[in-house]
C-alpha cells in the first residue's frame, strides 16, 4: 500500500508530471540535477505547494485529489519533514526543538540519545554544529510519530564526512520504521545508499536514461586522451 501519487504542476521552466509510489517501510530516493523539480515534488507531497492536477494517497487516506477537490493542509498530513538547514526554532533549545510536536517525552529522550544529542539538550540551535542541527531536525520530525517521512536534501549543506555519518544514522533509524520515506538529493551515491528505489527526475519528468548516463563509467579512452593533452605540472624550488 504505502504512498502513491500522480502529480502535475506547471512551473516557469517546465511542467512537472510524475507518478511515484513508495511502500510502507521503504525509502524512495528522488534524484536529479538542481532545479529539476524534485523539491517542488516533495513540497507537493507535504502540502506546502498545491499541485495543478493528480492525486496523493497514503493507505486509505486521500491527501490530495484534484478531481474531487481534496487538498489536505500540511497540518493534517501527519508528516515528518526535514528541510535543508536553519529550520530549527531559534528561541528553543535542542530539547525544546526535538520535543516541539512530540507526544511522548520518553521517545524524545531516546531519539536524542540515539543521535548523541543528550549532552547538548540545553543548547540553542546556533550553539551547535550544522550536523548536530540536522540530527535535531530529524529527531523533531520523528518524535511526532509521523505516518510519512519527507526529507529535502537534509544533509547537503554539511561536509562530506558528517554527511556520511548522518546518512548511516538515518538509514539505521528508518529501517526499523514502518512508514514510507521520501528522500530528495542531488548526490547519486547518497540516493543509491539510502533508497530502496531511486527515481531520477530531470526537468520535471522521470528520466531513467539520465540515471544510466550518470552511473555508467565514463569512456576511458576519451579520459586518457584528455589527460595526455593536459599540460604537465612541474615544481621547481
Amino acid at each position: 500500500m504505502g504512498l502513491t501519487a500522480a502529480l502535475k504542476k506547471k512551473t516557469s521552466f517546465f511542467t512537472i508530471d510524475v507518478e511515484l509510489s513508495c511502500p510502507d517501510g521503504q525509502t524512495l530516493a528522488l534524484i536529479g540535477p538542481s532545479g529539476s523539480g524534485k523539491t517542488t515534488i516533495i513540497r507537493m507531497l507535504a502540502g506546502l505547494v498545491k499541485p495543478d492536477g493528480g492525486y496523493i494517497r497514503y493507505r486509505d487516506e486521500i491527501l490530495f485529489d484534484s478531481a474531487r477537490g481534496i487538498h489536505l493542509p500540511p497540518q493534517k498530513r501527519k508528516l515528518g519533514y526535514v528541510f535543508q538547514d536553519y529550520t530549527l526554532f531559534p528561541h528553543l533549545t535542542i530539547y525544546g526543538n526535538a520535543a516541539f510536536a512530540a507526544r511522548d517525552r520518553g521517545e524524545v529522550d531516546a531519539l536524542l540519545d540515539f543521535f548523541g544529542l543528550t549532552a547538548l539538550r540545553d543548547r540553542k540551535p546556533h550553539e551547535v554544529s550544522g550536523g548536530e542541527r540536522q540530527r535535531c531536525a530529524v529527531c523533531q520530525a520523528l518524535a511526532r510519530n509521523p505516518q510519512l517521512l519527507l526529507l529535502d536534501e537534509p544533509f547537503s549543506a554539511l561536509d562530506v564526512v558528517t554527511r556520511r555519518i548522518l546518512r548511516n544514522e538515518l538509514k539505521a533509524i528508518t529501517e526499523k520504521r514502518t512508514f514510507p520515506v521520501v528522500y530528495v538529493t542531488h548526490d547519486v551515491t547518497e540516493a543509491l545508499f539510502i533508497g530502496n528505489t531511486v527515481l531520477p527526475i530531470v526537468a520535471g519528468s522521470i528520466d531513467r536514461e539520465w540515471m544510466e548516463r550518470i552511473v555508467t563509467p565514463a569512456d576511458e579512452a576519451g579520459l586518457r586522451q584528455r589527460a595526455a593533452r593536459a599540460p604537465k605540472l612541474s615544481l621547481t624550488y
Partner: protein
Amino acid sequence: MELLPLYLSAKLATLATAILVVVAAPLAYFLVHSSWPGKSFVEALFNLPIALPPTVIGFYLLYLMGPKGLAGQAWENLFGGPLLFTFSGIVIASIFYSLPFAVQPIKASFEKIDPRLKENAYVLGLSPIATFFRVIIPNSINGVAAAAILVFLHTMGAFGVVLMVGGSIAGETRVASIAIYEAVESMQYEKAWLLSLAFIPISYAFLLLVNRLTRKN
C-alpha cells in the same frame, strides 16, 4: 511644577500603545502572509496617517467623532456621553493616528523571520494561530517591543491630533505637549522649560532601549 499634563501624556501613551500592539501584531502578520487583490490599496489607506499632516487627520477625526459623526453617534449610544473632548476620545484618536507607526515596524520584524520556520511549524501540525503565538511572536519579540516603544514616544509627543479632538481640558485632555504650547503662549516660560526638560531623559532612555533591542535581534 505641575505634573498632571505629564501624567496624562504617560497614561494616554501607555493605553494607546497597549491597545495598538494587540491590534497591530495580528494585522501585520495578516499583511505579511496574505495576498489578495487590492491589498496594496488597503495597505496604503492604513498608512495614510504617516503621510497626512496631523491637523488634517485631527480634522477628519473631529468630524467622525463629533455628535454628527458615525463614531461619535455610536459612542453616544453605547456609553451615553460625547466622545469629543474626553480622554477616551484622545485615546481612540491616538490609536488611529499611530496605527501605521506600529504596523510598519512589527511587519518588518515579522518579515525578517525565515518563512521556512512557519512551514516547519505547519508540517509539524501547528495551526496558523498556534504558529503565530509559538513561533512568530517568540522570534520577533524584540522587534515588537522596539515598535511598542517608538509608538509610545510618538503618542507622548502627539500634538495636532490631540488638540483637534481633545481640545485642552485640564486633567482630561491637556497632555504635556499641549500644556507646553499653552505655557509658551501665556509666557510662563519656567513651566514650559520644566515640562520640556522632563521629556529629554524619558525619550533618551527609551531610545537607548530601542537600540539595545534591535541590535540584539
